[in-house]
Each structure stands twice: as structure tokens, then as C-alpha cells.
């Protein structure tokens, strides 16, 4: 151990493996949490690499497997990965936009033992407009939902909410009802990756969030047990941080498309840490012994106000990446917490958002695509929203 005393006596085993199989994606969502510099990464892992990652992680005790991306359907070896996951005893969850799903592939996933499919309704205003005007995307999604149902999967729909679509919540709920959705996750945007660079375009007003919750509660009362609805409030609108990843290196592990192993899908951004690749190390060494995974385990890294906080075992000081993005120091308290001396950074953003109508920002909204990613890589030296002026989406 590099820093004695920085880790708890006993390191728990991982339970959740998130496999970000590819960063390729047919969509260009402005709220995507994927890293903005994905075009600068090395080659994607091959099939054999992924099968090795699955085996090694399963030996450590991981049970839940998220197959994500990017759009995981862009990998033509997904069928092989699904089959191996089932044989190893994972509970496998495919997290997809549904774009590119065919009946044939779905049948192969079912046959291979895929446990669960979450369809996300993703492409921000373009798709939302499509839906509201009842055009082709809605028909495509409905068809995918129907196939999913025919293969006896529950219909699980995820809708990312933000300033531009949250007022359509009633239509979104009606759509879910028509699609006979069983689980609906209404997740407000988290401000990471593309979501962070577009934050001022996406952060809803407090009124918008309250109205949306109200409409959702009325709908819940009407629909009863037929649909289970989760409404995830944006953390900028709360005053205590989320228990990010249930604690660093505690249950969650992400493997990126190019093979890095991370304690959360955003941790790559943190300075001063190098995360190992599955091309060079096995998962056991990475989880238990790598300096990156031990960096924020336990609480000896904490500063005030976290160090003596009675909630430190409950929320772990919030999110290291959010602390770094907003304060420049990952060992600070997550500034969502109103005990943080930097809390004003969050409240200022919310106050700016509370002006209704157009966002008060000069930077254009950035769609998640290769061109914008390459431009952001060039501008990486100063990763603030101010440096993004002049970038155009296609």
C-alpha cells in the first residue's frame, strides 16, 4: 500500500461491473456523461480482452454487469459477450438507445441469457420533437419496446430530463403509458462530460423541477402498480451530496472502451492519478492494490468540513469528480453540500438557471460528436465553459 492508513482495514469486493464497450454512438446527446475527449483514446478492447475482464471480475465477486457505451449495439461481438456473461453467472443489463436493435439480435441476446434491457429515450430536443410531433423516432422506439415485450423482458425506459424537455413531462408519461412501460426512470441530467460543458443550457429552474415532480406524482396516483416510476432530482438542487458510487472503490468498477479500469465512469479526469489498463494488469491487482483504486478509499484523504462530519460514512463527501470540476481539488467536499465553502458555485449556477427562458450563456450548445470532441481535446488545457466559445455543432 503506498499510503499507509488511507484504506479501510478490509476492502470489500466489487459487485457492479460497468463495461463501456465502445464510445461509438449513432446519437449526439448534449447531456451525455461520456468523456468529451473520447476521440483521443486508443484502440478499443477486443473480444478476448472483454471475456477476460468478465471472468476476472466475476472471480472477484461482481454480480451485476452493465453493458453500456456509447451505444453497445455498435459492437458486433455483443452476442458473444452476453453469452459468456450468463455462463459466468452475471445478471446482465443492456443499456441501449435501441437504435440498431433488430429482432434477430434481440432473439440472440435472449437465447444467450441476457437478463434485462433498459431503453433510453435519448436524443434531446431533436428526438423529443420527433416524439411530440409523433414522427419516426417514436415509431422506432415503440417497435423496439414491442419486440422487447415479445421476448418477455420488462419494458424499462430511461428518460434524461433537462431544461429543454422537462416541461414535456406529461407527454413523456403518456408515451410511457402507451408503450406499457413497467419501469420508468426519469433521471435529471448529471453534469459530467458533455453534460458539464452544456450545463447552462441544461440546468432546469427550481420551478421546472417542482412542476415536473408534481405532474409525476399525480400520474403515479392514477396509474398505481402498473408502472414503477423513479424520479431522480438533479443534485445541484439539493444541499447534501449524493453517496457517489456508494464510496470510492467500494462496490463499483468501470472498464472503458480502451481498457482503463476506473472506480467510476468519470474518474479518468482526475489529475495526479493513473489508472491501470486491463491490457497490463489483472482485475484483482487493479481492484485491491492499484494506487488509483486506493486513492480515495476510507476517509483519511478527507479535509474539513468532511473529516469531522457525522455524515461522512453516509455520503463519503459526495463525488470526487464534481469536487475537482467545480473547485479544482478532488479532496474538497462536493460543493453540492451546503457545508462546503464552495457551495456558492452550485447555487450561483442554479440562480442563473432560475432566470426563465433562454440560458444566459454565450457558448453554443455542443452535440456529442467526433468533431466537437476533437476540438475539445485541442482546447483541453483550459477545460472551462468559457473556452468553448466558437465551437459549432454540425
Amino acid at each position: 500500500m503506498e499510503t499507509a492508513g488511507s484504506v479501510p482495514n478490509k476492502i470489500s469486493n466489487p459487485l457492479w461491473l460497468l463495461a463501456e464497450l465502445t464510445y461509438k454512438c449513432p446519437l449526439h446527446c448534449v447531456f451525455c456523461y461520456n468523456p468529451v475527449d473520447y476521440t483521443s483514446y486508443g484502440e478499443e478492447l477486443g473480444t478476448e480482452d472483454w471475456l477476460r475482464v468478465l471472468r476476472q471480475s466475476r472471480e472477484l465477486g461482481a454480480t451485476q454487469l452493465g453493458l453500456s457505451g456509447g451505444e453497445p449495439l455498435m459492437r458486433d461481438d455483443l452476442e458473444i459477450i452476453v453469452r459468456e456473461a450468463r455462463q459466468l453467472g452475471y445478471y446482465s443489463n443492456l443499456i441501449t438507445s435501441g437504435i440498431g436493435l433488430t429482432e434477430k439480435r434481440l432473439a440472440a441476446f435472449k437465447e444467450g441469457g441476457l437478463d434485462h434491457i433498459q431503453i433510453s429515450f435519448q436524443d434531446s430536443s431533436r428526438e423529443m420533437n420527433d416524439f411530440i410531433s409523433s414522427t419516426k423516432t417514436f415509431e422506432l422506439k415503440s417497435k423496439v419496446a414491442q419486440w422487447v415485450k415479445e421476448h418477455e423482458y420488462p419494458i424499462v425506459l430511461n428518460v434524461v430530463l433537462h431544461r429543454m424537455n422537462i416541461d414535456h413531462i406529461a407527454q413523456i408519461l403518456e408515451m410511457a403509458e402507451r408503450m406499457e412501460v413497467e419501469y420508468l426512470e426519469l433521471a435529471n441530467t448529471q453534469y459530467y462530460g458533455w453534460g458539464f460543458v452544456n450545463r447552462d443550457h441544461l440546468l432546469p429552474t427550481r420551478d421546472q423541477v417542482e412542476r415536473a415532480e408534481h405532474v409525476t406524482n399525480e400520474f403515479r396516483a392514477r396509474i398505481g402498480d402498473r408502472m414503477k416510476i423513479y424520479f431522480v432530482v438533479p443534485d445541484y438542487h439539493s444541499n447534501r451530496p449524493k453517496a457517489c458510487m456508494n464510496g470510492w472503490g467500494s462496490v463499483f468498477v468501470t472498464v472503458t472502451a480502451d481498457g482503463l479500469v476506473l472506480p467510476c465512469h468519470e474518474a479518468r479526469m482526475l489529475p495526479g492519478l493513473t489508472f491501470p489498463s486491463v491490457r497490463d494488469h489483472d482485475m484483482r491487482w487493479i481492484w485491491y492494490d492499484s494506487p488509483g483504486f486506493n486513492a480515495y478509499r476510507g476517509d483519511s484523504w478527507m479535509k474539513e468540513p468532511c473529516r469531522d462530519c457525522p455524515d461522512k460514512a453516509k455520503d463519503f463527501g459526495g463525488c470526487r469528480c464534481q469536487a475537482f470540476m467545480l473547485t479544482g481539488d478532488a479532496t474538497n467536499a462536493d460543493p453540492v453540500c451546503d457545508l462546503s465553502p464552495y457551495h456558492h458555485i452550485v447555487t450561483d449556477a442554479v440562480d442563473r438557471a432560475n432566470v426563465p427562458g433562454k440560458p444566459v450563456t454565450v457558448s453554443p450548445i455542443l452535440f456529442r460528436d467526433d468533431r466537437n470532441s476533437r476540438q475539445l481535446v485541442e482546447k483541453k488545457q483550459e477545460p472551462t465553459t468559457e473556452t468553448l466559445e466558437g465551437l459549432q455543432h454540425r
Partner: protein
Amino acid sequence: MAERAPLTTDTVPELPRHFRFQWEPAQNAHVLLFPEGMVKLSESAGEILKRVNGAVSVSGIIKDLERTFPGADLGQDVMDFLEIAHGNGWIRPKQDK
């Protein structure tokens, strides 16, 4: 939300669709797996859920447990756990489909 019908000794419980019960060597425990979640079960909870198969009634499960662990009067403990499991949506009365 609709009230759940209470369990009786005649109820035949089953796992909901998409729930999986399995032994985890790394946890040294039985677990219940479901979409994006997992419950780690105590030894006794594991013994009870092992017998939930959509074919045997609650009284049959109790009898089988009392055969496996003779001398114990398990009826109330089993019922209490099954009520909790039902309340959490881990089991449900068998549905015809």
C-alpha cells in the same frame, strides 16, 4: 398503490419474472438478483427462498424446512420472512400466465 393481498399458508409463492436466486461463492451467501440490484441473503433467508419455486405452498415450505432442521418450530419465522420478502417485491403469489 394497491394493497397487496396478505400471504396465507395456502399461498404458493414464486419469484417475480426476471429475479434470479443463486449461490455466490465470493460472498459465501445466496443472493437474489434483479434488474440493477442485488440482495445478499442470510443463511436462513437463503434456505427459505431456495424452496420458493412456484409449486410448493407456504405450509409445504415450512414442513420441508422442519424436516431439514428437525426439532425447530419454524412456522412463524418463515411466515415473518416471507411477509418481508413479499413487501419488498422479492416474491409474489403464483400467477397464472
